[in-house]
């Protein structure tokens, strides 16, 4: 595999919780500029893998390489600094902050103003602050939330909260955006809007890693998918091929995939 083409590689990831093996030697590789889908039945270990990839859990074994650099045992904030941003399955916005402020927090990792700059309001700090605000507004606009800038995050409708999480993640200038069930709980119109947004993000050169239960969405969007079951990868490939895979069909009992 030409390394330039691969953005993220996870090799032999093992994660145990007490006696329970949540991930048993999972390997995936995500290519630059693709949408990579991660599917599997409930409890298959998708979110656990996400948490390992984004530094929230340390893997018990295995290695992670992002953009040619190892990110073993990273802390979440270092992972974000490397260029991986994420959203959460059960939305985790900063409820007491406005939509705009939520996105502005996302700029933290790419800005530098310290205590002194903030207190003295130095020229540099003021310029940076203006840039933060401007970029945050752009991103809100980008995600279709411009009208919501001043609302508290917790007061937003559900679909807007999902998109705000994406805007906040984009604010960290990620090269890989990891979305944990972005369409969960959305109606058809909202899902359609989301789909457009994701395609637009891809078009802007950001690689997407997607956990999704909405098979239509994930199969329609993803260039490639990996299927997890009981902590192991049972298939990886293009959606059409994976859909025909016998192991995958068994795992889903023919249910949603047909």
């Amino acid at each position: 595999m030409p390394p330039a083409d691969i953005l993220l590689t996870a090799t032999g990831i093992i994660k145990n919780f007490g006696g329970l093996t949540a991930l048993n030697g999972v390997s995936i590789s995500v290519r630059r500029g693709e949408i990579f889908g991660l599917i599997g039945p409930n409890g298959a270990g998708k979110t656990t893998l996400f948490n390992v990839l984004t530094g929230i859990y340390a893997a018990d074994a295995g290695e992670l390489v992002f953009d040619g650099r190892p990110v073993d045992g990273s802390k979440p904030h270092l992972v974000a600094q490397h260029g991986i941003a994420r959203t959460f399955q059960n939305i985790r916005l900063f409820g007491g902050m406005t939509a705009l402020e939520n996105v502005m927090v996302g700029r933290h990792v790419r800005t530098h103003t310290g205590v002194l700059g903030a207190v003295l309001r130095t020229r540099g700090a003021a310029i940076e602050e203006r840039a933060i605000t401007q970029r945050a507004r752009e991103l809100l606009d980008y995600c279709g939330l411009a009208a919501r800038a001043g609302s508290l995050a917790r007061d937003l409708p559900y679909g807007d909260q999902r998109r705000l999480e994406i805007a906040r993640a984009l604010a960290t200038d990620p090269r890989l955006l990891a979305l944990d069930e972005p369409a969960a709980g959305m109606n058809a119109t909202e899902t359609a809007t989301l789909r457009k947004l994701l395609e637009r993000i891809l078009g802007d050169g950001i690689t997407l890693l997607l956990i999704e239960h909405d098979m239509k969405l994930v199969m329609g969007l993803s260039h490639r998918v990996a299927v997890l079951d009981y902590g192991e990868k049972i298939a990886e490939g293009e959606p059409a091929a994976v859909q025909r895979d016998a192991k995958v069909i068994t795992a889903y009992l023919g249910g949603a995939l047909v």
Partner: protein
Amino acid sequence: MSASAPWRRVAWVVIALLLLAAPFLIEILFGRTWVRITDVALLFIMLALGLNIVVGFAGLLDLGYIAFFAVGAYCYALLASPQLGMHWPFLVLLPLGAMVAAVFGILLGAPTLRLRGDYLAIVTLGFGEIIRVLLNNLNRPVNITNGPQGITLIDPLQIGGFSLAQTHSFAGLTFTALHNYYFVFLACAVLSIIISRRLEDSRIGRAWVAIREDELAAASMGINTRNMKLLAFAMGATFGGVAGGLFASFQGFISPESFHLIDSIMVLCMVVLGGMGNVAGVVLGAVLLTVLPEALRYIGPLQQRWFGEVFIDPSDLRMLLFGLALVLMMLFRPSGIWPARRRKAEENHAAG
């Protein structure tokens, strides 16, 4: 925005003039006692704003905050009194006190910040007690703090030959020590407000609030939560350290008795009552809780007059009210008596 600007300017000028005239007005209206109470209130504003950074912004419940006040006070007292025979100038001592307090903040924070919020509360409480017990006992085997006897004859603030402890006349006005200190404390309090506001509206402040709202999400957005929390502790401690130094010079005497747990709780009450994380509310809380107990003093004699005996100690009543206030605020108005977040949200909206 532009239409209201002149009015705003006028309002600010009026407020500034009132603040400058305040000690004289207060002295005439209520007597010098209340000038002293105002001075103390200004000190508590600084303290409450410091704790607000830790509790209000970053959401870390610190029950031993008064320890930083103590550290600042002892730092000043030891280096500007006959205790160790040193008399350093305050321009060196106040920053030094702030720094030492900040170091203590980091020392406390480093091992404990990964603990859950409620453990942190208990550990900080323990830290507060440890500091007090240490100050009380560092008089043997070598006498450093003079133990429970406290340190006396602490130097007043002095600029050149101008001592704040003496009465001066200027432009026909009499500036007693109380007045002089008022202006120094006022300057420091205003500075604290400005620093708090600017931090709040900065990258740093947003990171703190993000940690308070959801630590994991904040970390995932690239915020180094451990460092930011340490920074919050250090910043909060800095405020306490400076206030402590000012307190020592103002009182001229300090002893470990001034730094009990109850004083930590009192500052916490100011923050909670005013509205955690809201600078204006916290200032209001500090003023209310300094003035209210003084007003409650009249309840004792009133009871005596009306009923012929005192049924309830004013200080007990005060504590009961504090306790009740903490419970009721949390149950019914967790954002404090002056919630501001929403107002700010609207402002942002309007500006766009």
